[in-house]
């Protein structure tokens, strides 16, 4: 207890990290369920269906499967680096989330002012780019240390792709930085407060639409997702950099990929979609009941689904989910909880929509060829994001130029 009293900041940070980690792990697991389900429905299939109602326990089953599979290490592999690579990939993917603010800079939890972010860094955006720029090594090392043909080729492709698109990714957000004049996430979000014509939120996506499109394309390539998932092109490379990985080490790469997806979506939300700001005008005070009422309506639908379509054990499982949704919905309606939940609700809602777009893209677009990928990145995306940067800075500087000659 003495230690707790001496280092309050450290202890609060540790608690936040524990909460974030727990939420993130669950989110990663269910993101895979969500992706499979969405793609299945787009392709007129059912997707995971048999493990739990609507396949809701599928992530758990997958986790158990990964844990109990045989963990092979190729005899020719560089043992230390072979084991280091998945740890590096996963830990870096998770570290970035420590910088993401999920709600306003001060909310009151049990009367205590708290920030809904683990680390509010002054140059938060640069930190995030610093951590993601090291993320390449996880994949590069995995490809090299397996000491096998396909992983090496996959690792090389992947590093080349990530270096190429990182340039466009970084340049595409500079326009936003110029508008807001800060690297700090809270200030970037604060700059987007207010409305055009009293109803369109002042999000950066409107003046920076070109920047956003460049960012989104570069982000998909940066996270190695379809249609830029060449590093794992199974028809040419057997599986890319993770060919030799099995069991839980493979699962770690899998989780790292999803973690990066979440980070990139969070960043898009902060930079272009107003972060935790509500899209509705502040004068509509009833909007603080939206999360609670939304969850209650979901619970009602789930109850209908339980009674109508489920039988046996599925009925019990879905009843539990219904009660959970309803309970949390009621909790969100409490006057003490409603204001705290506002920021995270809008933030996570926007992130969820972007993630849905990610999955949608994957199920619709065919994979690009490698030379197309490279020429697209260097000959189209990079010039466009540079042009966006030049135009933005000219627009910002124009009034000064006119005034002072």
């Amino acid at each position, binding site marked *: 207890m003495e230690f707790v009293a001496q280092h309050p900041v450290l202890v609060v940070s540790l608690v936040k990290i524990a909460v974030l980690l727990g939420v993130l792990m669950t989110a990663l697991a269910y993101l895979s369920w969500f992706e499979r389900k969405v793609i299945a429905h787009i392709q007129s299939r059912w997707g995971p269906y048999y493990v739990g109602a609507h396949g809701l326990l599928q992530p758990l089953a997958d986790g158990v499967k990964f844990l109990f599979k045989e963990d092979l290490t190729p005899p020719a592999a560089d043992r230390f680096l072979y084991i280091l690579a998945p740890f590096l990939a996963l830990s870096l993917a998770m570290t970035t989330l420590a910088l993401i603010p999920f709600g306003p800079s001060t909310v009151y939890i049990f009367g205590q002012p708290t920030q809904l972010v683990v680390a509010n860094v002054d140059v938060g955006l640069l930190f995030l780019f610093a951590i993601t720029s090291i993320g*390449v090594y996880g994949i590069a090392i995995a490809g090299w240390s397996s000491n096998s043909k396909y992983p090496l080729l996959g690792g090389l492709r992947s590093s080349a792709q990530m270096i190429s698109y990182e340039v466009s990714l970084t340049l595409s957000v500079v326009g936003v930085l110029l508008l807001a004049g800060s690297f700090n996430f809270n200030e970037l979000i604060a700059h987007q407060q207010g409305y055009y014509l009293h109803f369109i939120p002042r999000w950066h996506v409107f003046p920076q639409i070109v920047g956003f499109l460049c960012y989104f394309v570069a982000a998909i390539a940066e996270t190695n997702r379809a249609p830029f998932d060449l590093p794992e092109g199974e028809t040419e490379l057997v599986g890319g950099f993770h060919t030799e990985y099995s069991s839980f080490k493979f699962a770690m790469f899998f989780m790292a990929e999803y973690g990066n997806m979440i980070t990139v979506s969070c960043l898009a939300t902060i930079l272009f979609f107003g972060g935790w700001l509500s899209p509705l005008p502040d004068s509509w005070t009833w909007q603080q009941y939206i999360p609670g009422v939304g969850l209650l309506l979901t619970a009602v639908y789930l109850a209908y689904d339980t009674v109508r379509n489920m039988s046996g054990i599925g009925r019990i499982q879905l009843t539990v989910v219904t009660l959970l949704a309803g309970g949390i919905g009621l909790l969100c309606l409490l006057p003490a909880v409603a204001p705290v939940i506002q920021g995270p609700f809008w933030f996570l809602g926007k992130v969820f929509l972007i993630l849905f777009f990610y999955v949608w893209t994957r199920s619709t677009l065919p994979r690009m060829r490698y030379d197309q990928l490279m020429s697209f990145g260097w000959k189209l995306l990079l010039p466009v994001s540079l042009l966006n940067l030049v135009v933005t800075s000219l627009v910002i500087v124009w009034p000064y130029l006119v005034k002072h000659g």
Partner: protein
Amino acid sequence: MSVPFILFFLFALASVAGAIMLIVAREPIHSALSLILVMVSLAALYLLLGAEFIAAVQVIVYAGAIMVLFVFVIMLLNAGVEQRTNLSKMAPYAGLPLAVVLLFGLAHWMAHSAIGTTVANGVGAPTQTAASTRLLSEMLFRKYLFPFEATSILILIAILGALVLARKPE
């Protein structure tokens, strides 16, 4: 023992260990990765001094960009294990004592010089950080604008030179 103090020793040890590994490792990719460890540890040390911008840029530029190219080239060329030559006979007799003397000399100088004492007092006491990025950009783009632009042009010339050299002959 404050937390920054412990962190300082952790990262200082990591950077020294990385530097030693860089020289001792026989596999080129191990050397490259050790160098990355050194750079990231140095960035952490900058962070402890309150230089957030420099720390982030150190990681982005050195660890994230330059070293990726190193690792990339090593992987592409599939460079083999280093061949050891016979060690110099002078090394154990002259090199080691000289290294020890240098180490103690440096330690002595750091303990007594003006810079050394400032650094020692400054560790764990971050300077004002909020203005550091703005301050740095004002220095770069106002006071030192000419050297900054000159360096940029120099780097551009180097890039063009590299392109000309790397291009296939017609």
